[in-house]
């Protein structure tokens, strides 16, 4: 079975060399990444989950800072409903020293993260998802179907001036078994700090 899936992956890699990243409707692949507490985390560990709010985030980006409390609030609101935040930092610490694992541990502790903050050291997960900036959200169903990709809301500057809560609307729709009205948005943000670029 394992050999077959590896063969299948190789085949897919050769057949579709151009397309990178998931689109809405695709099924995301699970990952295994190190959390700030040192444990390895996979989406499969969440047996009771009804979905996931996967967020590519980091310590240093001003947009990540502007959205930090909103991300904490998202987890507070939805983890108990079965849709936890899973935060992933893919930034290369050699070009962004504030994004080292030690700094991630410090920030998670300081901010009291009740959700995993995972390091994507090889950047393979960010690449597989097609994450480009921080924070960049992928809302997944429990069977890892991508239901929303994009921004958290429509006002980066001021949380109290937000008029469209894209992620909340997508998760609410997911919980009601509906398709979100808005499935894809874009936002200005910090590009992920890729290795050798």
């Amino acid at each position, binding site marked *: 079975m394992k050999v077959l899936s590896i063969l299948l992956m190789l085949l897919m890699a050769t057949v579709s060399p151009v397309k990178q990243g998931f689109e809405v409707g695709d099924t995301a692949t699970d990952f295994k990444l190190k959390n700030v507490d040192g444990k390895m985390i996979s989406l499969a560990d969440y047996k009771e989950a009804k979905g996931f709010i996967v967020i590519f985030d980091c310590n240093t980006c*001003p*947009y990540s800072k*502007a959205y930090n409390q909103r991300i904490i609030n998202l987890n507070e609101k939805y983890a108990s409903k079965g849709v936890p935040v899973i935060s992933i930092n893919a930034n290369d610490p050699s*070009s*962004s020293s504030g994004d080292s694992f030690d700094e991630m541990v410090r920030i998670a502790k300081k901010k009291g993260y009740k959700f995993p903050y995972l390091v994507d050291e090889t950047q393979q997960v960010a690449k597989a998802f097609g994450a*480009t*900036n921080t924070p960049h959200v992928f809302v997944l169903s429990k069977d890892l179907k991508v239901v929303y990709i*994009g*921004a958290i809301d*429509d*006002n*980066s*500057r001021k949380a109290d001036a937000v008029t469209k809560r894209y992620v909340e609307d997508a998760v609410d729709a997911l919980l009601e078994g509906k398709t979100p009205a808005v499935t894809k*948005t*874009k*936002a*200005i*943000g*910090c*590009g*992920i*700090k*890729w290795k050798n*670029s």
Partner: protein
Amino acid sequence: MKIGFFSIAFFLVITVSGQPIPQIKLKELQTLMTAENNRIQVINFWATWCAPCVKELPLFEKLNQENKSIDITLVSMDYDLDPDPAKVERFVARKKLQNKVVILAETDPNSWIDKIDKNWSGALPATILINPATGKRKLIQKELHEGDLEKLLSEITN
């Protein structure tokens, strides 16, 4: 005499706080991108808070010095997080930027990022090169390094 005093005072003010930088709307940016003057347009999207953007700015300054037949515009995207232009003005003055700098003063980026370029994620830095003569256009969504701009320009020329 009075005029002289005021112009000196005005000169001091703009030297200390930096040149006022034009705030433009999407429409003006789109007009720029149509390259009606038939010159090659190099448009760089940057922000004062974006480290890789700041790092690559000297490449655009160098290109401006070396090639006056190309129009370079540095589009500050600072407005989205901070609508006060003072920080951008101080930055431009401190770095003594010679290129044309504008601030894109628009909210709700989701409504206009695709209008700038459908393939642009919205991540900074980003650079668009347009050659009206060949109709070729390039979008680069990463930090540029020495020699990259020259290579890209030759790609849209031939």
